[in-house]
């Protein structure tokens, strides 16, 4: 998977939510821990559904988690 134009604040929001572990977030979203690692590293753009699930697990709105930068 190549880099993506979608960035995210998953890492920051995890720590803001009582230092939630990657595994705990992965379990809450029914994905593997490696997918959370890839997301945090900006190596993977999630589907809309997974984006909503992550936002829900972190207790924030989807736009607080993901940002899209328009390609130049």
């Amino acid at each position, binding site marked *: *998977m190549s880099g993506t134009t979608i960035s995210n604040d998953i890492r920051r929001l995890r720590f803001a939510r009582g230092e939630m572990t990657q595994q705990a977030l992965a379990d809450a979203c029914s994905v*593997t821990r490696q997918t959370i690692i890839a997301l945090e590293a900006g*190596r993977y753009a999630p589907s809309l559904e997974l984006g909503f699930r992550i936002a829900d697990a972190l207790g924030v709105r989807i736009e607080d988690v993901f940002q899209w930068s328009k390609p130049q």
Partner: protein
Amino acid sequence: MAALSARNRLVLWLLAAGVGLALFFTGEYRDLELPLGWIGTVLFVAATWFSVDALYRVPQSEEEAAVAPGEWQAWIGVAFVGAIIGASLLQADVFLPQVPIGQNPATNKAGQSIGTLFVAWLVLAHVLKQRWAGKVLADERDTRIELIASQWGRGATAFCIIGIAVLLGFSDTDRLREFSYPFIAQMLMLTLLWGLWFDQLVAALLYWRDRRAAG
């Protein structure tokens, strides 16, 4: 063996499986009285079995947890399909005689050794799934990686089929007579295996590249 830690026991059994596999590949060609190929097969199967037992007892390490189940399965697939292709190529000449596969003891023997590898692969894959029971084994990222890998695998298969078509289409009639039907059948099977191996390799590399970039 009892005094060793579970991890060291696993490493030793895996080494024994490697020795068994090496004997399996080369044993038949050594000028020795012992049936080394057969001993290698037995050693490989036994060592794989005990490795499985040791694997259950090893606590999950950080290194193991860092690798996605899909990546483990892809690398194991690369190793086993590669071994099956290697075994098929080493024994390719037994398919050359113009004798149906069912009536040629040499092809039956080759088929048995290749079948043993397939069974060992299935057993290992099943055991790993048991070890990961309760965990998420695949998600949308795995599906996307599998999709990209299968496209590459299909391309590799098509490339190989075109190669065989060109080979058969442009060969002299005398040369074509040397290719028996069992040999052509074996070439087609190898083409499928090559596509599968390439598929597994691309998947493993995509997982590895993501992991490396994230690390």
